[in-house]
Structure formats: structure tokens, C-alpha cells
């Protein structure tokens, strides 16, 4: 199994632990990640607000790079997945194609539309049947109650992801079950983390994040897990501010998706960069009988 690895910006910077965990899990499962040092940012839902055509063109280039190598993209960020998929959708429109094709021609490339954009969550749940994954689990996450937090752009707009229920998905929860943990169902799991307006209306953004963490906690979650590093920033790095906004101590550890998978497959916490989180994951690790090592 071989993919063009699209880590996205944050996993190469403040969310480096996501990249570490993705590489560890991929090695363990025999997923080959091919590096593309030419990939650019996906636009993150911001460039398109300033210039949609520009954003589609940037991602057409990214998709064309993988296409030339005959590979599908593997993403580890809900927003990257959404923006790259949006480009695939928009490029079905002949009017958009007429704008983008000449631009790509100028930089010596072309887009045919054969590259699929697949998030690690989808690869793990679609390529590895639960029984197969279960057989590889060496440290079952028994007793750990985990609230999945999907990230909007992995679910919506829905026609981009015909297999997933935009407001009631189950893939992540099924994966959590396969790892031996117990999924927690709560309304917030498909809601927004507030990240898109974190630098625009910080109080509102923190409040929105706080509401979702509160919701997970009220439903008994010991930890949350997310396939999106932007959600991780809101839920983990700004959790102190979220606590302030919702007037409640939350103390909620938040795992990146491959960190949770890595733990179940036997990775040592330091191999997954767990000490880089703002909110300590020690309580959650104690539940599954392991400890973090300070960085």
C-alpha cells in the first residue's frame, strides 16, 4: 500500500507529533509514504476566501504532482482533506477547468482528476478490516473512554464524501472499538472546534471549543481523539482558554488519531510525541497501563 504523503503545514511545524505518529503507524502497518517536497499548503479554508480560483489552482498542482506519480494522496488533517477534495469537486466544472488548465500548462503540468484524496482515518478503516487491526493490537486500550472529534472538513460538504454521514458518522468510533477502547457518542463530535476564527474572534472560538470538550466530558470521555491538527490546536493548545470561557476545569487529554492507534499497536509514548501536548495525557495513559517520558 503506497501513498503520496501530504502531511500539511501544521504536522510539519507545531503539530510535528502528528507526523511522528503517522510515520510510526504507517511503518507498523506496511503503508509506504512517498515524500513530495514540492507539495504546497492546501489553503486551509482561508486562501479560498480571498481567491477561490487561486486556491483551486494551488491544489490542482498538488493533485497533479501525485497524479504524475500514479499515487493517491494520504492526508492526516481534516481541513487538508476537505480543501484538496474541494479542488477535485470544483475541477469537475468545465468553467473552472477552463481557468485552471492554462495556469497548470504554464508551470509544465496538467490535471486529469484521477488522484483520490484519502485521510488516514479512511485508509485505516477501509483497508484494514476491524478483525485484522484487532489482531495487531498489542496494548488494547481497554477501559479508556474516547470521544472522537472528526473535524468539519472531513465530513462536510457531504457530497464530497458520499460514504460518510455528515452529521452522524461512525468510522472513527468503529476504529476506537477495534483498538479496545470504548467510544463515547456526544453531539459535539461532529461540531466545529472554533479554529477558523481563533485569530478573528478568539473568545467565541475558545467558547466553541470549550462547549465540545464539556460535552465529551459530560458523556464520560477520559480523552478525545481527532484526525485534524487544527482541531488539536483548539482543543489542546487553547484548552486553558476554553476552560476560562466555559467556566469549567476540563483537563481533557486530546490525542491525534495516529497517536491513539500507535499506542494500541505498542508504540512507546515518546515515539508518538505525546509530551508535546499542552494538556497532559498521563491520566489517560495510566488507564491503559503506560506512562509518558519527558521530552
Amino acid at each position, binding site marked *: 500500500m503506497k501513498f503520496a504523503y501530504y502531511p500539511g503545514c501544521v504536522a510539519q511545524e507545531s503539530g*510535528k507529533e502528528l507526523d511522528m505518529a503517522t510515520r510510526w503507524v504507517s511503518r507498523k502497518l506496511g503503508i509506504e509514504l512517498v515524500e513530495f517536497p514540492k507539495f504546497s499548503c492546501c489553503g*486551509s479554508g482561508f*486562501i479560498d476566501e*480571498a481567491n477561490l480560483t487561486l486556491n483551486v*489552482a494551488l491544489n490542482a498542482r498538488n493533485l497533479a504532482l501525485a497524479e504524475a506519480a500514479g499515487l493517491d494522496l494520504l492526508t492526516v488533517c481534516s481541513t487538508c482533506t476537505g480543501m484538496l477534495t474541494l479542488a477535485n469537486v470544483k475541477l469537475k466544472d468545465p468553467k473552472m477547468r477552463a481557468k485552471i488548465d492554462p495556469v497548470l500548462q504554464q508551470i509544465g503540468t496538467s490535471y486529469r482528476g484521477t488522484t483520490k484524496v484519502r485521510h488516514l482515518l479512511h485508509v485505516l478503516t477501509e483497508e484494514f478490516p476491524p478483525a485484522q487491526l484487532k489482531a495487531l493490537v498489542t496494548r488494547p486500550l481497554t477501559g479508556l473512554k474516547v470521544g472522537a472529534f472528526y473535524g468539519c472538513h472531513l465530513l*462536510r460538504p457531504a457530497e464530497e464524501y458520499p460514504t460518510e454521514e455528515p*452529521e452522524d458518522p461512525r468510522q472513527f468510533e468503529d476504529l476506537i472499538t477495534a483498538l479496545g477502547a470504548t467510544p463515547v457518542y456526544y453531539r459535539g463530535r461532529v461540531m466545529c472546534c472554533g479554529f477558523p476564527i481563533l485569530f478573528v474572534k478568539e473568545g*467565541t472560538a475558545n467558547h466553541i471549543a470549550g462547549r465540545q470538550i464539556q460535552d465529551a466530558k459530560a458523556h464520560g470521555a477520559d480523552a478525545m481523539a481527532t484526525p485534524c491538527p487544527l482541531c488539536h490546536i483548539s482543543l489542546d493548545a487553547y484548552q486553558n*482558554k476554553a476552560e476560562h470561557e466555559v467556566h469549567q476545569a476540563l483537563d481533557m487529554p486530546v490525542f491525534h488519531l495516529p497517536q491513539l492507534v500507535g499506542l494500541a499497536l505498542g508504540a512507546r509514548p515518546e515515539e508518538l510525541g505525546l509530551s508535546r501536548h499542552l494538556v497532559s495525557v498521563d491520566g489517560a495513559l495510566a488507564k491503559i497501563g503506560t506512562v509518558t517520558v519527558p521530552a
Partner: protein
Amino acid sequence: MVETVHATFQVYRFTPGVDSSPRYVSYEFDLPPHTPVLSALLKIRQEIDPTLAMRYSCRSSICGSCAMVINSKSRLACQTQIGPELARHGRIVIDPMRNQPVARDLIVDQKPFWHDYERIDPHLIADPAHPMPEGQPNPMTPEQVDRFYETPRCIACGACYSACPAKEADPEFPGPMALAKLYRFVVDPRDGATRERLLKIQPGGLWTCLRCHLCTAACPKDVRPSERIRDLKELAIAAQGVTEAGSRHAVAFKENIYERGLLNEGKLARQTLGLAGTAAQLPQAMRILRKKPELLKSPPKIEGLAEVRKIYEMLEDEERSG
């Protein structure tokens, strides 16, 4: 003989000023799986409890009266069949719409919704320089109509308003329906107040949208409000430049990627927040930097950055030619 399924409904009941708190009342029936939730509610009202309060009219997804929250999704009761809901959830939980106060049971007080709609001046404003022809049609080309083809389908049911987390967190935000309607007037070639409309909506209005697309998921008429809001943002920047923290962030992000091809996170925060805003963020930044020190460094430039820059130059000619 029509096949039936056993259906359990848990219906929100509350009369403010009378009941001390809301409660859920259970009702059970055997019904055909294609039964709309609205028909089941009417059956409850006709056969069990005539005091159950709800709005409805056409039963055909046209009038927009019966929007409510069914198994935690905001949608029309007449358009939702019980079979798939029972198959997925085992029961059907029915709540009134969110983001509006409950008047009684499943009826909400829609004043906030209509107030937010009125804020966008939902009517054509004639351009004095190009008055509308008196007693004559004022035709548009098919291309002009295409730009807002989806928006007039809106039936003002309020499902998007109920689903919107930005509205929930910030009462000042007008919500998806009003903004989708605003888009319709902004791109209508007969309207003479495009700039004024964009200027009026931006403070506190446009840039609070989270682009979570929950409104687009909720809309029974595929108006796609979140995409219309995105279009409005692009139009606002094109018409007025950077006037808000939100537009500053979008433009700063775009510029940031031109430099290296990848995001420079630390620099983006400084670009959007400005000097004073950055200073206010210092304590938080110090907390994060302790764990993530690489935020202080600029990321490397991608290979093939010249290609990315060429794309910018081709699609943003006028801005970059200088």
C-alpha cells in the same frame, strides 16, 4: 399488507411559565417505515395527546414550517422518514429547533431569526443611476441568474439557523439564512447597493462564520449557505479590501503561502493580530512555545516554489504586476 416497524418516539415537551423544566414523553407505535416524522407527530396529536404543540402546514417540503431537531439534526419533519432513523438510532428523539427560545413544545419563537433576516435589507434597492424601468420587465441574462440560482430556493425554514454553532456562540452573528439571502442581493445585477450591503454586514456579521458547513448539511433545499458565505467574503475583499480581522486573516494567509509555499504559523499570528494583538497573546504564546519551540523558526521553502508563485502571478495579475 404494508410492512410496519415498531417506532419509539421521545418528544420534547415544555410550556415556559407553566412547567418547571422540559421533559421527554415517550410514544410507541407500529408504523410503515416510509412514514414521515410529521405524520407520526400528527398521529400522536390526534390519537394520544391533542395538546402537543408544533408548526406544520404543507407536508410537502414547500412551506418550511415543520423544521425541528430529529435525532440531533435540524431538518424538516415532513421530509424525514422514520425507517432510516430507527435503523440507525433505534428510536426517534424530537426536539425544538436550537438558537431560538422555546414558545411551547416543538414551537420556537422565531423573532430572532426574522430579526436577523431583516438586518440584511432583504429586498432590491434600486440604483439611482440606473432606475428600474417603470411598468417594464427588468430582464437578466441566464448567466446573471446562474450566479444566484440556488439561493431563491430557500424556504426560510430555519434549519440552518438551528444548526449553526457560530449563532449559538455569538448572538451578533446573523446566521446562515440571512447571509445566503444577502449574497442573492449582492450579486443581483438589478441591485444598486452592493458596496453598502457588504460594508454594513462585515462588522460582527460575515467573518464569524466557521465554515463548518453544518448549515449546508441541514438545508432541505440545497441552498448551500456556507458556500454563499464564502462567496460573500471574496466579494467583500474584492470590493472593499481588508477592513476586518477576518479579511485581514484570509489575505495574510494567502500572502504567507506565497513566501514559502507552506504556512509560517508564527508569522501568520503576527500578521493577523498586529502588534497590540500579538503582545496580548504573549503569555499564551510562551506556554505553547515551551512545548513547540519550532514555532519560532520559519519553515523551509518548498521545492518548486517558483511554480506556486507563477500560479499566484497568473491569477492575481493586477495585484502583483507592480
